[in-house]
């Protein structure tokens, strides 16, 4: 039976498509086969793994919180106002999406490092040193992950019906009240999706973090970095951590199913 949904697939399309599927799925199967299922708990309870897990969870959450606090207002500014240089600013905001993360890490180091133009001031005024601390981890993750949130929220703001905001204004609501009581609740699904995406990206961040924050176990060694380093000495722990990251990714995908996978795009 051949309905509208099932049609004959030409071999020149089918064969490469199957290769693509195999290429995407086989490594994951490899990971699942080698997983020390029996000792998963033991592998994860080792000191390095535990530290990496805890560090990753709180830094990703902190950078998501920071992104919400400063990223949502920036998204509003980009979507709802006009000012000179706006296009340039939007490009700059989007840049971390395409920039190799390691370059972001170098840039952060050059700005906030002890000899960087901001880092030098922080050091001489407050005695603060940022690089190679957990704060640096949060900064590196925020730098890389915040654009995901900003783009999701900006897209939602652009497609939101501004008639509701007009109505709120005629009812006596000042601009910030309008934002708080009408705009934000109406785009909350997009904010939620953007935050989940941002968190997932922060959790998996590697390049910018290792460059700007290093890899001190318990201090700045996040899960992806720990996976990379433990793969040689303690492959069981590396695989266990990888499994954790894989599970988190699957959970994120499922939670964004409606917005991201089915619809194709968020914005």
């Amino acid at each position, binding site marked *: 039976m051949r309905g509208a949904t099932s049609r004959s697939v030409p071999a020149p399309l089918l064969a490469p498509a199957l290769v693509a599927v195999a290429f995407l799925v086989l490594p994951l199967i490899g990971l699942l086969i080698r997983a020390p299922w029996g000792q998963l708990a033991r592998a994860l309870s080792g000191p390095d793994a535990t530290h990496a897990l805890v560090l990753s969870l709180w830094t990703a959450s902190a950078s998501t919180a920071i992104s919400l606090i400063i990223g949502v207002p920036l998204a509003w500014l980009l979507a709802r106002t006009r000012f000179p240089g706006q296009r340039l600013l939007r490009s700059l905001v989007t840049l971390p999406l395409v920039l190799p993360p390691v370059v972001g890490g170098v840039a952060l180091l050059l700005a906030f490092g002890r000899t960087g133009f901001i880092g030098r001031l922080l050091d001489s005024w407050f005695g603060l040193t940022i690089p190679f601390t957990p704060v640096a981890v949060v900064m590196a993750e925020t730098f890389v992950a915040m654009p995901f949130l900003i783009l999701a929220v900006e897209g939602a703001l652009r497609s939101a019906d501004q*008639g*509701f905001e*007009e*109505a*709120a*204004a*005629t*009812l*006596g*609501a*000042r*601009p910030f*009240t309008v934002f708080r*009581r*009408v705009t934000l*609740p*109406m785009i*909350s699904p997009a904010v939620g999706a953007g935050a989940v995406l941002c968190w997932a990206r922060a959790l998996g961040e590697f390049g910018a973090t290792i460059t700007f924050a290093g890899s001190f176990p318990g201090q700045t060694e996040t899960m992806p970095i720990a996976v990379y380093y433990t793969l040689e000495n303690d492959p069981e722990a590396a695989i266990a951590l990888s499994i954790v990251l894989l599970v988190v990714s699957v959970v994120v995908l499922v939670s964004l199913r409606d917005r991201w996978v089915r619809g194709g795009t968020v914005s």
Partner: protein
Amino acid sequence: MTSDENDGLFVSAAVSRGSFSLDVSMTAVPRQVLGLLGPNGAGKSTLLGAVAGLIPVTSGRIVLSGRVMDDAEAGTFVPVYERPVGYVFQDYRLFPHLTVAENVAFSPRARGIGRQAARSAATGWLSRLGLADLTERKPAALSGGQAQKVALARALAGEPALLLLDEPLSALDAGTRLHVQAELKRHLEQFSGPCILVTHDPLEALVLADRLIVLEGGRIVQEGTPAQVARQPATDYVAKLVGLNLYAGSAAGSHVALTAGGTFVIADRGFHGDVLVAVRPSSILISTQRPEHTSGRNSWQAKIIGLTLLADRVRIDVDGQPPALVDVTPAAVAELSLEPGRQVWLTVKATDTEVYTR
């Protein structure tokens, strides 16, 4: 400042938006519903937007209850949220994430009233409008008529000095519309300030409005009571709305030379110069032969273009000098074999013409 400015709404302003310009001078007095009638793109919504403060005026001023809202020359502009204006939008714009009660409490809350007081104010308005059992519903669960009333309650809950209604019934189906219209009329009668009602439904304007302003191309083309406007329409648009034939012409005593061709004999009331002649479609007689021995003073030959069946009569579109719409009974259509292309004679009595100066 005149008394109009102290009491009610006074507008003498212009708004330019691209190639469109709105330039009006009007007043709206308390306890009166001012109907704003006009075709699409006439500037009705722009005028409401300017009064509400959603659209800044390009020149002139808007004064509400003695307070200057806009004064382009002096640089005065009161922001939307500080204007005591209640706005019922055509699409209602009820906040989908808030319950009915929260929607109605929104304005008191936004204007600085405490949560409890705002809540009880909202409950008061909801029960006054017969919506008490809908308080916890979300707007998506309301019928069109209910949503319309909630939108009205929400606008009134802000205790505005002026109420603006943008085609409040246009989103309703014909069945609910009459019912909601009657209720709306009752609520509007209780409102103490001026009320401006935008509509392009003539019946709605006649039923709800105390006074009408007809807006076309951004200008006021007619102003008067609904009865005056319905009897003596000033433009083709209004004539079509109220279902009259309207002819422009030049009067000289008992004769009017029509711009569209032909001449009308009218009852001589001393008109000279530019006049309008309104004729009801049912006042025009139609015959298949040249009428003789008739008391109708105006007869002319014309050709039927089309027929439309209305509720209990047939409206015939006739081309001649001048063209006309003629109402006859379905029986007459059959007896006289009236059909498109047929040559007929039209007759109007001089006393059946409504003549007034342009």
